[in-house]
């Protein structure tokens, strides 16, 4: 149905084809033009592939992650063997192949890092959203809770907790998530507080929308950008956290390899066997760096107004 009296005064846009791009499409286009982001994304994709295919790859190399090569993997003095054709990145003090162990360690790092980050973001978003949305009383309670969590001496607490419950991958994920969600919660809360006052929230309320609908449909989409950025930056933190716990012996239990316990094992040998320390360390640093750089690029892509520190 048309109302001609109205159409006389319309300002219908000309028929020139304007492509209505969503903010996501625009961000994606910006991200694709970012070479550093592409390199990091490819590196991370390779890591994920390696983690998934750890079994077949180590089979190709010819050693298992805990298999001790007593013939070629250890010198007559009982020291690690340097990188060679047989062991590409050398062996450790028990004659185990370092490359294979790093590959299996990737699995641990990614699983723990991603799962812990995901759990932390999930909890943080829910708590932050409720704290920001439901007025001062809920906010006061939840904010104090976040303050308490953030003020825990986390390393001490993590060590104590693991010694009580006993180490396992699941406990490790839980511990990392427990100490990470509060930071996400704060960011989400702050964003929600500002979004809650926007007029379109009032408009939704005047239409009769319920709280849940407003939170999910009107508030959450506006939180996605900061949450994505925070998640990509939380993953490397979780990976380092995992390595730290494993290094201290309260994470992944030996002989299962993880980068952290490999670095820990190398402590007594790095003076005579540099490869023992350098390669697991490099794996940890490169992975962390890749996630961090990708996180920065995602943030730049999602918010074009932020200034870059270094031109790329």
């Amino acid at each position, binding site marked *: 149905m048309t109302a001609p009296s109205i159409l006389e005064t319309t300002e219908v846009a000309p028929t020139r084809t304007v492509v209505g791009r969503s903010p996501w499409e625009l961000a994606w286009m910006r991200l694709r033009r970012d070479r550093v982001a592409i390199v990091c994304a490819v590196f991370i994709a390779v890591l994920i592939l390696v983690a998934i295919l750890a079994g077949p790859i180590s089979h190709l190399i010819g050693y298992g992650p805990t298999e001790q090569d007593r013939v070629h993997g250890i010198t007559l003095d009982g020291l690690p063997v340097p990188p060679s054709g047989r062991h590409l990145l050398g062996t450790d003090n028990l004659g185990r192949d370092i490359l294979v162990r790093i590959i299996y360690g990737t699995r641990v790092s990614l699983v723990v890092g991603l799962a812990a980050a995901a759990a932390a973001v999930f909890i943080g978003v829910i708590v932050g959203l409720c704290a920001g949305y439901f007025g001062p009383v809920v906010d006061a309670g939840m904010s104090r809770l976040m303050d308490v969590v953030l003020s825990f001496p986390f390393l001490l607490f993590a060590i104590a907790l693991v010694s009580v419950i006993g180490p396992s991958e699941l406990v490790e994920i839980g511990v990392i998530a427990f100490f990470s969600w509060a930071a996400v919660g704060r960011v989400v809360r702050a964003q929600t507080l500002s979004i809650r006052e926007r*007029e379109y929230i009032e408009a939704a309320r005047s239409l009769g929308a319920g709280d849940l609908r407003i939170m999910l449909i009107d508030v959450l989409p506006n939180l996605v950008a900061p949450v994505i950025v925070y998640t990509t930056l939380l993953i490397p933190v979780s990976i380092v956290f995992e390595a730290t716990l494993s290094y201290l012996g309260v994470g992944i239990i030996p002989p299962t390899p993880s980068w952290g316990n490999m670095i820990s094992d190398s402590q007594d040998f790095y003076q005579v066997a540099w490869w023992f320390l350098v390669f697991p360390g490099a794996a940890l640093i490169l992975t962390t760096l890749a996630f961090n750089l990708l996180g920065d690029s995602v943030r730049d892509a999602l918010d074009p107004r932020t200034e870059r520190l270094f031109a790329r």
Partner: protein
Amino acid sequence: MTEPLIRVEGLVKHFPVRRGIVFKREIGRVYAVDGVDLEVSRGETLGLVGETGCGKSTLARCMTRLYPLTGGRVIFDGTDISDLSRARLRPYRREMQMIFQDPYGSLNPRRRVGSIIGDPFAIHNVADGAERKRRVQELMELVGLNPEHYNRFPADFSGGQRQRIGVARALALHPKLIVCDEPVSALDVSIQAQIINLLKSLQEEFSLTYVFIAHDLSVVEHVSDRVAVMYLGRVVELADRARLYSAPRHPYTCALLSAAAVADPDRAAQRERIILVGDVPSPVAPPAGCRFHPRCPKAQPRCASEEPALIDRPGDPPDHFTACHFPVEPGERLAREQPAIGQPEG
């Protein structure tokens, strides 16, 4: 006269001013709306004018129960909705809608236009899927938007087009009442006319009732049947549009009208302007008696102690109400110097 569509009785809305971090003490109140009685009949447009901060928008949000009331009653279509719970209020939300001032802030930038206009259908489970899309596109056409722009984002539209989106959303469920909170203040003058004409033709087509808030007097004169003038949380004068603009009785209305821009420069030069002294007092501590008395050129001692009621004054038609002890007589010239009593110098 039949039962009005919406009736407001003694409406009061105070906002507490709190201080302290954990233990918040109330240290004062903002008397945003302080005892307002109004009626809006079906099919009419009630204009609401006043300076910034006089409580117009608060009144509008109380009428649509976006804010809980501090006191008083709102009777919509024969039902007292003043303290209905949110769930009980839902059916009435369909009947009264709002159009907001800021065409940028009132549309979620992350959502597509089709989904924004379709919101009322989704919230009230009216239409789904293809049916919803069809009805949304119908609405878009009705308000003069290209229905093909269904999948665009608010950022792809101009201010005027966005306000049309807001109008379409308000219209979706065929409400009885639309409260327009300064719907054109943020728009260019040329676009203002388009939106106002759109609102007027929609009113005819769907027999809508409007409460139209503005601070632009000429806009209100153009759209309203009756006009209420607000000052510091109270209605000071309420009259038929023609009557209010030709023979205002309240000194504040006279000052407000004299301050409005006139298109004709010759007339503008002849016209006498009443310049009010001082600022609007803070709504945290409104003056006693008549709230306008510290700035009023006609104020008498009585004005400082006794609050004038909003009643029909002698010599006025029965639908002209003025809250003033000493209304302005026709042809009277208001003194331009200092207010008769009370404060300020500088």
